[in-house]
């Protein structure tokens, strides 16, 4: 590799020796030999124990996979340790899954067993596992998430910290396959959802609740007003003048949906706020077409305050939802399928969380979620309404 501050790059001639449009390296060169030999020839697979899979090919060959969970944020030292392990057991090959698990693939069961023992034995100095084996079958595998306070400019919450805390809370569910179906948890640190968490069994979503402040003194100097106006997806920002004649903008606060796009364009419009920000919990979504169609996650708790470093209320709430679901749902039933079968009113009753007006949709296309049948189940909610109208 190049050395020195500029390396191969010559700022005087930026186009000199510039290589562009080469795309990714070809995937095939990175396939372990057993994968290459059996490409497209797989017959079936089996989970031998949590985190360990075998895939059997029509050639008779077998590929053993050991899956480990972990933080998506990874140092190069951690990756090098993964490389050392892959060199020792897997001929120098390794892969990541869509949900950021690491998979080590070998061609023999003995190697897979030794590998698993090795992985389970590696810990950071303060005791957390480096490479916990699990995340297969009816378990809770890696929580996919966004950047949060580590790297994002519009987050309403952290990502890595809550995710670590929730994983600690649910560690047994990662290690064991005890749930009625797989359960997928995701986190996005604001409603722009870089992480597209909107179809997860349980989604943790950062929400702002205060419109941006406007730094009148510097706004015109550091931001371009037409761009700021154009940045608002809801057209809620207009050009304005301060009393002393400075150019600035004003926000129609009633229309603000707290997305932070204005702050992206203009650092003079910060919206983060320790009291305003927090997380919403959504539930019941899924991606797979298995049995029922893919579903969106629904807002079941509109707001929980941020409680760093370990977000106890979020952890406790999610653990409780998982436990009630695990106990009550039928085999093969995803969380959303269970909620639909028992009825969402029963879902709220069983989980024991209040249903608030915030769970009734008042955005566009809201009608889709109104109940337009007389089919319902009697829960305490019904009597609240009956009492309110003097009907009981």
């Amino acid at each position: 590799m190049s050395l020195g501050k500029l390396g191969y790059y010559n700022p005087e001639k930026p186009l000199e020796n510039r290589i562009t449009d080469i795309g990714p390296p070809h995937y095939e060169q990175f396939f372990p030999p057993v994968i290459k030999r059996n490409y497209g020839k797989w017959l079936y697979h089996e989970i031998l124990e949590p985190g360990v899979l075998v895939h059997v090919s029509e050639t008779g060959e077998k590929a053993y996979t050991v899956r480990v969970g972990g933080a998506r944020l990874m140092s190069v030292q951690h990756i090098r340790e993964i490389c050392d392990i892959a060199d020792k057991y897997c001929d120098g090959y390794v892969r990541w899954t869509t949900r950021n698990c690491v998979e080590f693939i070998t061609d023999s069961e003995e190697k897979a067993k030794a590998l698993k023992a090795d992985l389970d034995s590696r810990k950071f100095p303060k005791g957390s596992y480096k490479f916990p084996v699990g995340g297969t079958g009816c378990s809770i595998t890696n929580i996919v998430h966004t950047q949060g306070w580590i790297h994002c400019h519009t987050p309403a919450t952290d990502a890595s910290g809550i995710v670590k805390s929730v994983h600690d809370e649910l560690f047994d569910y990662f290690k064991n396959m005890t749930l009625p179906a797989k359960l997928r948890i995701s986190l996005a640190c604001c409603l722009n959802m870089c992480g597209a968490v909107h179809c997860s069994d349980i989604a943790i979503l950062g929400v702002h609740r205060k419109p941006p402040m406007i730094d009148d003194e510097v706004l015109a100097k550091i931001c371009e007003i037409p761009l700021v106006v154009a940045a608002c997806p809801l057209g809620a920002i207009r050009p304005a003048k301060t009393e002393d004649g400075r150019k600035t903008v004003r926000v129609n606060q009633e229309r603000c949906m707290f997305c932070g796009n204005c702050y992206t364009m203009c650092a003079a419009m910060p919206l983060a706020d320790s009291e305003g920000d927090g997380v919403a919990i959504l539930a019941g979504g899924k991606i797979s077409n298995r049995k029922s169609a893919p579903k969106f996650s629904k807002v079941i708790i509109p707001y929980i305050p941020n409680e760093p470093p370990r977000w106890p209320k979020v952890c406790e709430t999610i653990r409780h939802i998982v436990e009630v679901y695990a106990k009550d749902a039928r085999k093969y039933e995803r969380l959303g399928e269970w909620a639909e079968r028992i009825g969402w009113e029963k879902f709220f009753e069983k989980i024991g969380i209040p249903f608030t007006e915030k769970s009734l949709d008042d955005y566009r296309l809201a009608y889709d979620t109104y109940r337009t049948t007389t089919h319902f189940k009697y829960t305490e909610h019904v009597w609240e309404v009956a009492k309110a109208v003097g009907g009981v």
Partner: protein
Amino acid sequence: MSAEGEEKLWETKKYDEVRIYKDEEIWNYTDEELANYKCKHDTPLLDQLEEGPWPSFVSDIKQEALHRHKLPEDKLLIPADVCDDLLGQVELSYVEKETHWKHGGIVGVFGYGGGVIGRYSDQQEKFPGVAHFHTLRVNQPASKFYKTDYLRALCDIWEYRGSGLTNMHGSTGDTVLLGTFTEQLEPVFFDLTHDLGVDLGGSGSNLRTPSCCVGKARCEFACYDTQDICYELTMHYQDELHRPAFPYKFKFKFDGCPNCCVASIARSDMSYIGTWKDDIRIDQEAVRAYVAGELKPNAGAFGGRDWGKFDIQKEVIDLCPAGCMEWDGKELKVNNKECVRCMHCINVMPRALRIGTDTGCSILFGAKAPILEGAQMSMLTIPFIRVEKPYDAIKDIVDKVWDWWMEEGKNRERVGELIQRKGVQEFVTKVLGIPAIPQMAKEPRSNPYVFWSEDEVPGGWQRDINEFRKRHPR
């Protein structure tokens, strides 16, 4: 050095040919030093995230912090304490519950409109190591298989010219290099393209880095070659990936079967989901083995709990959404004409049932996260198409959709929103030039507000009021 003909550079290339650090420089600290490492800033809140069983990102960042401090000065081109300063700044966020990052818009590599996300600290005095903390998105190899030689080389570049911190991987699928200074963006890009043979991924109003499931590499359910088409379309549309001219982002995702492991149906503008059109293959012997309890249902996915004896009637036949299966105690029958290929029975009995052999994919359009009009899932548009090299038919469809979207789309309008605004009829019949079919809708529309066009009505719309009045006096 050029990339032409070097797509498979790493078949022969070795880490040792390009490495920056010696082995003794990489593992240059003891366990004891690591256990006693004192970060430059006090981080009592973050320290609590070192406890508990789940891998701690705080412990990992500290490991990199210590490692950097022990490297010789001339082996680091951005501050040695970038990791300490990151922890310091994040600790401050933990105290104040607010982020300290600002957006930085104009950074990038020359000639590309995407691939770099600019970021600056708003606490540069306190945390100079993260004054700039820009991210590079590096196009991941399909299905994220790696050779360790390649990964080690990437690690060296990123430790030398960046923070040494990554995301494996970003939400879209890229290998994400997290945090460097502006002056290092070009040198990193040159190293990546010259020595690693890898390019940046997409960001902004581009084609975003396409991604795919594990596919035929290690899954018996793959109905088409997800890696090959992912690679081929990524290469074919490099210009669209690097040089933004779209109204907004556009994503391709490739799922090999309806289990949808890369979530294409929820998060890609154009979702490719494998399917088949012949019969599910059945091994009756194996079905009986499942019923007899000799084989574990769902490949052992339920192994952690005693669910009682496997009941094929209750667990397969009754749960089939199409109700197209029968079990008479000896033989399993599938009425394949009624099957909707949901994968449930195949998932439950992978040794007995297999996907058909006449395979292709369904193409769906328009999924997106909630900004702006609310979240959308992709709409089934082309129920079955063959997925065969060189994918000309599929490229034709892509080009038609892009031409329309570039012409009609508003700034920051995803194709799914445009389809809603302009009407799905226009998209289907005019843009794609295909007939409308019942598979495209959950049910026919219930409102009667049909926008008839003039040429659909005999005699047209131009009528003579005087002629009318002859029949109908005022």
